[in-house]
Structures are given as structure tokens and as C-alpha cells.
């Protein structure tokens, strides 16, 4: 059995909570006492039927306001897969929560209300999924019962969405017409929509092929912790512990330690359960090296012929997550893999309108929930890959130096300084 992490996004009342409630309910992920509690609440509120949506509203404030305002994690399993749902709110003022939920997802479900069609917010949800590098997208066209299960309505939505999504970097989009309330095409194929030949939502979640999403090419091992037993038995033992970010490591491989550039070979790949000949993501292991090279937390072990960029300068897309805006000239702490540094915002290239994808190059700050492209410089070099190659070595967070809170999430777009302008360009200018 393997693991699929997916996120869900939809606008208020699109039926996201009902859909998740139905998935949990039909896959027996809901327990009797939870059901009894939401039955009581539904009765107290005078609803005619049990509101499955109540299951996914965790905190008191949210229950009072009747909206989901933070990311909530849900779990269920079928005999084929274990699922982790990051249930995220859809309003524009919770973009940061959506980004958070999307950051670890293998798949995103974007809900569209069949009566309303593709709205601006559907664009935003798909854009965020693409920005965060989610490899698989599902567009669930919900409330099909309210449009008479009409194929034409569904086709129109599919066409419109596909045209727009062509602008995005998403390779796998599956459209599914559903009724979350009645269960059509959620777990089992709908009898009311025989014109639809595709899988039910759950079938798709169970079968979508994710093994090839892992990057097994670019070999990266950020060192987290050095294991030094300092006992007689393990006198000179030094295990460099961490989780493999991308790529496959083999015992005996020639490796380079960054940023020092020292070369050596992998002597052993160890785990508590014994040695491994090869190791791939997402395993946590410890590496023992042939030579005594100086390695510490924040360093990265790679292959000599395929290295990340060692640089102080780079450009990234940032989603801003704090009330106080990001401004040019501001300084933050940056955490990238297991390495931290100081970062200076040199330039805000543009702010992107998440609904229209319009770029505003005159922007001078990024407010809460806004997304833009910035140029950053750090006090010590980072070991960067582009985010589209690797979420682990291309993603970072910015931390406010006073509050110590996480204020921004970043995705590297270009590692290293701007390419020099060519002579022709200089001459033309």
C-alpha cells in the first residue's frame, strides 16, 4: 500500500466539505461517535439531513463562522492506498493556507459548481496548484444534480477550463462530473451520467500513477545531523544523517560535498535496520564517507557531474503570508533545506494577479496572500535547484527576524545571478 497526499480547494459553498465528508463516509473513514456529534449539531441547527460538511470544520471559530479557515488534515485508507487530505479554504484571503496545503500534495482537486461554471477563483485554485508544482490536477464539476446531469454543461466547463489551463504548467488534468451530495461518481460510477466514461473520483485517486513523480535523476542529500556515538565501539564513527531529497544513491558512488566541493565516495548507507546498497527518496538514512572530509548540517551531498547551483543570488516566486508586507530592501532569515542564512529582498520584479495572471511590474510591495517574483541575495551561499526540478531543494521559507514567524514561502525560478546581457544588447542600449 502506498501513500497519496492530495489537497482540495473550492470556493465557499462549492461543496468541498460535503465531498470530503462523503469520501470519508463512504470509505468508512468516519466513526460512529463523530457521526453522532455532527448529527446532534445538525439537529440543533435545524437541518433536515446530516451535514457531512461539519466533519471537516475543526476549530471553534470556524464552527461559529461556518467556514474553513485553516488547513486541516484528514486521513483515510482503502485497500489500495492511504490518503492524506490537506483540506484548504478557497477564499482569496486564505491563499496562504491553500499554498501551505498544496506544498506537499501529489494531486489537487479543484471544485467547480456546475451551475456557476468556471469562475475567477477556479483559475486561482488551478494556478496555485501549478505554482506549487502539484503534478496531478482533478477538476471535479460538482452539483451535477442541479443541472439535470446535463452533459452539455459539463462539456462547456471542461472546454473552458482546458483552454485556460493550457497557460499553466500542468500535465495531467482529469475532469470528473460529480454530485457530492448524492454521491454520483464519488466512490462509484453514476447511473445518472452514463455519458461519462471516465473513472469515479475515488477510483482515480486510488489509481493515479505517482511513482514516476519522484525525481530520481538529480542526486541530492541535505545533511541534517551528524551522528557521532563517541563510544569505544564506534570510535571514529561519523554518520551524516538526512532524508534523500531526490536521486538515487549507491554504495561506492563518487560524491561531492557542497559547498566545500570536497570529493569522496560513499562507504556505507546505513539505517537502524541495516545497510542499504541503494537508497532513494523519501528514505531517511545516514551516509558514511570513505575519506575524513568536514561535513556538517546544511551541507549537501551530490554527484560530481550533477550539482545544484551554489549561489548568493537568485529569483523566486514568493507567496506572502504575513500582515506586514514584503518590501524591497527588507531583510529576513531564509530556511532552505537544512541551511539557514540572512536574505535581502533586492528587487520585487512583479506582483501577479492570481485570478487573471496579469503581472504588475509597478508593484512595490507584496501584501498578505499576494504572490510575486522577487530577486533575493543571501549572506551565505545556498545550494539551489529550480523548484520545478525539486520541491525540496527549490523551496524555501522566509522568517521574520523579530517575531520569528514564517512570513513567506518561496519557489526558486532562477538560481544564480542574472545572465550577463550580450554585447549586442549592450550595444543596442
Amino acid at each position: 500500500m502506498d501513500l497519496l497526499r492530495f489537497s482540495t480547494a473550492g470556493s465557499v459553498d462549492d461543496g468541498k466539505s460535503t465531498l470530503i465528508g462523503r469520501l470519508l463516509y463512504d470509505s468508512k473513514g468516519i466513526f460512529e461517535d463523530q457521526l453522532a456529534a455532527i448529527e446532534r449539531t445538525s439537529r440543533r441547527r435545524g437541518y433536515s439531513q446530516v451535514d457531512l460538511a461539519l466533519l471537516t470544520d475543526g476549530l471553534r471559530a470556524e464552527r461559529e463562522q461556518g467556514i474553513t479557515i485553516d488547513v486541516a488534515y484528514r486521513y483515510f485508507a482503502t485497500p489500495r492506498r492511504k490518503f492524506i487530505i490537506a483540506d484548504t479554504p478557497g477564499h482569496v484571503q486564505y491563499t496562504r493556507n491553500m499554498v501551505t496545503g498544496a506544498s506537499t500534495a501529489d494531486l489537487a482537486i479543484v471544485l467547480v459548481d456546475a451551475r456557476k461554471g468556471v469562475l475567477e477563483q477556479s483559475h486561482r485554485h488551478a494556478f496555485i496548484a501549478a505554482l506549487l508544482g502539484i503534478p496531478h490536477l482533478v477538476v471535479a464539476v460538482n452539483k451535477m444534480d442541479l443541472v439535470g446531469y446535463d452533459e452539455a454543461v459539463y462539456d462547456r466547463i471542461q472546454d473552458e477550463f482546458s483552454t485556460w489551463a493550457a497557460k499553466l504548467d500542468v500535465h495531467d488534468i482529469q475532469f470528473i462530473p460529480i454530485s457530492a451530495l448524492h454521491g454520483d461518481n464519488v466512490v462509484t460510477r453514476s447511473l445518472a451520467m452514463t455519458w461519462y466514461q471516465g473513472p469515479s473520483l475515488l477510483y482515480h485517486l486510488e489509481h493515479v500513477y505517482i511513482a514516476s513523480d519522484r525525481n530520481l535523476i538529480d542526486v541530492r542529500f541535505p545533511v541534517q545531523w551528524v551522528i557521532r556515538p563517541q563510544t569505544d565501539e564506534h570510535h571514529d564513527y561519523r554518520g551524516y544523517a538526512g532524508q534523500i531529497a531526490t536521486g538515487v544513491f549507491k554504495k561506492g558512488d563518487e560524491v561531492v560535498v557542497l559547498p566545500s566541493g570536497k570529493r569522496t565516495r560513499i562507504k556505507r548507507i546505513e539505517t537502524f535496520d541495516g545497510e542499504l546498497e541503494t537508497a532513494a527518496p523519501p528514505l531517511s538514512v545516514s551516509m558514511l564517507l570513505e575519506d575524513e572530509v568536514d561535513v556538517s548540517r546544511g551541507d549537501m551531498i551530490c554527484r560530481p557531474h550533477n550539482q545544484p547551483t551554489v549561489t548568493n543570488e537568485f529569483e523566486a516566486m514568493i507567496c506572502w503570508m504575513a500582515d506586514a508586507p514584503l518590501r524591497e530592501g527588507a531583510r529576513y532569515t531564509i530556511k532552505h533545506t537544512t541551511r539557514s542564512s540572512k536574505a535581502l529582498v533586492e528587487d520585487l520584479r512583479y506582483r501577479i494577479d492570481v485570478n487573471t495572471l496579469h503581472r504588475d511590474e509597478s508593484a512595490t510591495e507584496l501584501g498578505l496572500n499576494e504572490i510575486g517574483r522577487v530577486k533575493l541575495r543571501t549572506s551565505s551561499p545556498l545550494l539551489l535547484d529550480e523548484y520545478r526540478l525539486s520541491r525540496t531543494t527549490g523551496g524555501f521559507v522566509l522568517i521574520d527576524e523579530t517575531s520569528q514567524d514564517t512570513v513567506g514561502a518561496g519557489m526558486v525560478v532562477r538560481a544564480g545571478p542574472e545572465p550577463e546581457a550580450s554585447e549586442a544588447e549592450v550595444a543596442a542600449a
Partner: protein
Amino acid sequence: MIETAQMSERALTRGLTHLDALEAESVFIMREVAAEFERPVLLFSGGKDSIVLLRLAEKAFRPARFPFPIMHIDTGHNFPEVLEFRDRRVAELGERLIVASVQESIDKGRVSEEPGNPSRNRLQTTTLLDAILEHQFDSVFGGARRDEEKARAKERVFSLRDEFGQWEPKAQRPELWSLYNGRLRKGQHMRVFPISNWTEMDVWQYIEREGIEVPSIYFAHERDVFRRDNMWLSTGPFLPNGPDEAVERMVVRYRTVGDMTCTGAVSSTASNLADVIVEVAAARITERGATRADDAFSETAMEDRKREGYF
């Protein structure tokens, strides 16, 4: 070329299960804490979740010793089987155990027992916060899981506590990718939940896979119990049954391990791990719902206690 790549990928994927992925994530979290904090501690209750934490710590730090001590918040209302297990397990591991006692907090006048309420669950909070202060711990590993309860479904893996040990659900830090922010302001500390993404089923499957021993009360045994608040409670010196509460000898087991006075047994004949897993798969009541009197008070009981600094 392409063929080789596909073959090796299949070879590498085969055998990698959801438990391997969860374990790798939890080990990563524990190592982050070791690296980013000065004084971590691991809370150990004797229950299955904290037993799994100990195994994960072995996976993360062996052949070296754990870079932190283990701490038990002792309510004084323990199942004897669990205390015996705790001492044996800690000795096997060769690690350091700190016991912080609720009885001592009561004796010192830090807390007082509520008349008529035998449970010391609430009192534990003070003992825990006092111990954190006394030992200057800046980070505390706990075995909580997000599937346990709905307030927990939104709690971060790195969960910040203020000077009063309180959790502020509205002021949680965004937590993206595997980038955990361990920075603290003065007075704050971090609760860290490495098995946030595990379910009760995952925990049992892992215990079976790893061949980890758990206290005997998790398996079916005969016990004198009586019915209170819709639960089967064990009779004992801390918890006398009332005049209307008839004691019966039943075959039961526990799904969680906690304060004897508010942890209920379930009627069960599951006498080994395989049976327990079958039972968990078929269970239609959450483990907290079945066995924790303290959560039944109000729909938001857990959230309220967490805000006060509970585990």
C-alpha cells in the same frame, strides 16, 4: 536507456509502503529538532504512540544515544503493567528517564484535586509546564496524531506554545514542505508531533511490522470493571465504584493508556497484534471516543485543554 531507468524505478518503488514513507518523515522531524533546539525532551506515557516515538528515535539517532532525555508525567494513577513496562523499556534502551509527578505538584500546593473528580488529567498540565521550566526544555516531543480529534487535525507538527504553555490556534505558523520553523522568542517553547500524519491503524501496523513490545493491557485480559459515563472503568484504590455501579468481571482490553481513572476499557477478545489490527479495522468508534471520559464533556473539550497547555 529508458528501459533501464524504468526498471530501476520499479525496483526502488517495490516494497516501499506507506509505513516507510511515514517513518522517513517522522525520523526527519526528530532530527530537525535535535539539530535546531538546545534542550529537547521526549514525553513518554507508556502508551503505544509514545512507544512508537521511542522506536523512531532509535531509527533517527542510533548507534549514538538519544540527544535528549525521556520524561514521564506520572499522575500517580498508573496501570502497574505500564510502569513496569516503562522501566524495562528505558533500561533496555539505556536512555535517561525523568519522572515528573502530579502527586508532588499536589503536595507542593501547585494544584489541587477537584472534589468529586478522580481524574488527574487536567492537573498534568501544571506538572508538565513546571517540569519544562525546571529543566529549561525548549522543545517537547509528543505522540499526538491528527486523526485523533478535530482540533488536532489543524495543529502543526511544530506547534508553538507561549510563556503560559498555551496553544493559539489562530496564530499558527504556516508549515510548508518539510521546512519546519523552530525559532523561539523568549519564554516560548515548541511541542513537536513527529507522528502527526499517522492514524491509529498505521501505529498498530508499524508495531506489528517492527515487532515492538507494548504493555499487556492493550491485549484482552480479565478485569473487574464497572460502567460509568458510558465506559468500562477498572476498579482500584483510586477509583472506587459508586453504590449503583455494579462490578463485573469481563474480558477487556485498552485502546489507549492513560490515567486509570478516566481511561475506559473496551470489551474485546483480541489477544495478539493481528487480532488488534482486525479489531481496529472494524472499529466504528474513535479511540478517544471509546476510551476517554475527559473528551466527552463538550464538543470542544480537547481544544479548550490544548489551549491551556495540555499535551
